[in-house]
């Protein structure tokens, strides 16, 4: 018998089925379904939706067996890795320098833009971040470990 490789198309309904089971379980056991006097309890609605999701996940899984799964080129994940890198370096050097570093490295090192194009892109994005988010909205971006060490 030929076994079929598990693809992302199959994985999605499996994950949604697990989500459904978790909501049904907690909905019934922890939050309650229906009370004679008080009517529907906090678990009522999520439990019904959970059962519907479970049934449809089974249908979607059966449907996924006939479908081709798409590929996920490694390169497509680079921006997500970039965000993780920004989050980690924020802890050390703060968010604004991390964002600035990300834009510079991405444009110059990864995309190989000329210095002129890199600096134009850098200026545009920093103008948006500093103008709109720092000056206009007054968002207190984290300053990072090094700044805190120097300042305090």
């Amino acid at each position: 018998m030929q076994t079929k490789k598990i693809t992302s198309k199959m994985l999605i309904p499996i994950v949604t089925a697990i989500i459904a089971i978790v909501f049904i379980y907690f909905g019934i056991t922890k939050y309650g379904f229906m009370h004679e006097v008080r009517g529907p309890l906090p678990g009522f609605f999520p439990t019904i939706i959970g059962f519907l999701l479970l049934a449809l996940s089974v249908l979607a899984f059966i449907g996924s067996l006939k479908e081709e799964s798409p590929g996920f080129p490694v390169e497509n994940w680079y921006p997500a890795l970039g965000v993780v890198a920004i989050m980690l370096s924020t802890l050390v050097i703060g968010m604004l320098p991390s964002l600035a570093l990300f834009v510079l490295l991405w444009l110059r090192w990864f995309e190989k833009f000329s210095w002129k194009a890199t600096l134009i892109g850098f200026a545009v994005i920093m103008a948006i971040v500093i103008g709109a988010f720092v000056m206009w909205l007054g968002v207190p971006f984290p300053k990072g470990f090094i700044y805190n060490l120097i300042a305090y």
Partner: protein
Amino acid sequence: MENLQMLFMGFSVVLTLENVMVTLLGAILGLIVGAMPGIGSLAGVALLLPLTYKFNPTTAIIMLGSLYYANMYGGSFSAILLNIPGDSPAVMTALDGYPMATKRNRPGQALFTANSSSFIGGLIGMLILTFMGPLLADLGLKFGPAEMTSLLLVAMTSIGWLVGESPTKGVVLTLVGVLLASMGMDTLTGSPRFDFGNIYLLGGIPFTPFVIGTVGFSQVLKLMEERNKKVEANLNQKLTIKGSLLTAHDFKRLLPPAIRSGFMGTFVGVLPGAGATTGAFLGYAMQKTFKSEEPLGTGAIEGIAACESANNAAAAGAFAPLLALGIPGSGTGAVLLGGLMMWGLNPGPLLFTTNPDFAWGLIASLFLANILTLIIAVGIIPFLIQILTVPVRMLIPIITVVCVVGGYSTSNSMYGVIIMLLSGVFGYILDRNGYGVAPMLLAFVLAPLLESNMRKAFIISNGKLDIFFDKPISAFLLLVLFAIVLTPVIKFILRKAGVSKKK
């Protein structure tokens, strides 16, 4: 008459320096975001949501409404000049827009046709909205919990079931959206639920980072595939405003299809699940039944006018159910509704009576946005090529940074960035597998309303289902729901029958 008086009152709200400036800003950003292939109105509105935090709710929604509306104009630019639709409603525009720009060598006139038709369609949509919005709200006042439950079920099912490649996938994501929205606090008792002992989840999944991730950051991951694509305009002439003006004869050709599609598009926009894309398709299809001076598909003015007018009219028409019933017709509508709720406003039948300044101010702002967008859209014609050929490789880090700071600024904590990142990755995986995220967003926004109405209905009826069938409006809506659910099943049976007949 009363509606017109209220509209004038709305203009008195809008015509302040701050509101005119944000309308202008929304129009400019909407045109740019709409023109750039691959961003779209949904991502545009989501990415700009954090920028509106400092405004009062009226000013904030005026900016987002103007941005959404201007987006419909902008989508046609890249469709006409590059044969790449900036947004899905502009797909049909490319059919005649690109040949008119390249084969007929009239790129400026093609842009002018799109702009003029968008203006006419939008104007018709807004006029109908002015009269129909309060009528719908009056009807909505008759709705109790049972009727609201049925209406919300129709709205959510129609988008999940009818939009996208597979009804099952659409409904699966609708249900996932409902469950994600139920995390945090119980809507009726306020007690914590599904927080899994996590202090952050106690407040539920924050709306803005979730939306920025699912539609904005997932778009960045998708754009990675297009980063090496070279975008070039195949034009033989320089674009100027003077050289783009239409002749009286051209204008005579565009007017009838623009007016027809304006009316049709508005009614399509009112229907949940239909929206601007369906409007544009139907507008073009309708034009096929009428006479055009040049055959459609070869650069006919009538073809551009029909779909551009219809998609702008549909965008305006979609505001009627959003404001009057609190039911968005599309993913972008859901983001706008989420924004309204975030600012403490509850769109629905009472909005026109409890917050007339807001409701009429928004409608008046659409009229203002229509005029301002037309002026800017004509004004930027000479610079369009430069705007449209900004390389995708440059946009990727820019949008990524906006996503990160947008996610952070909601809660001033890294929790927002984490939610943005996770929902972005989730949205990307879903999209690659043919699961459109719009139904999930709509369900995420509407779920609390659905749950509270459903539970109230059950409390009133002592837990009996009869309440949904005893009330005539609710029973009618459930019939509509039944018809929606059956539509793909019937389509499938008919397709099978057709195939076996051919065999």
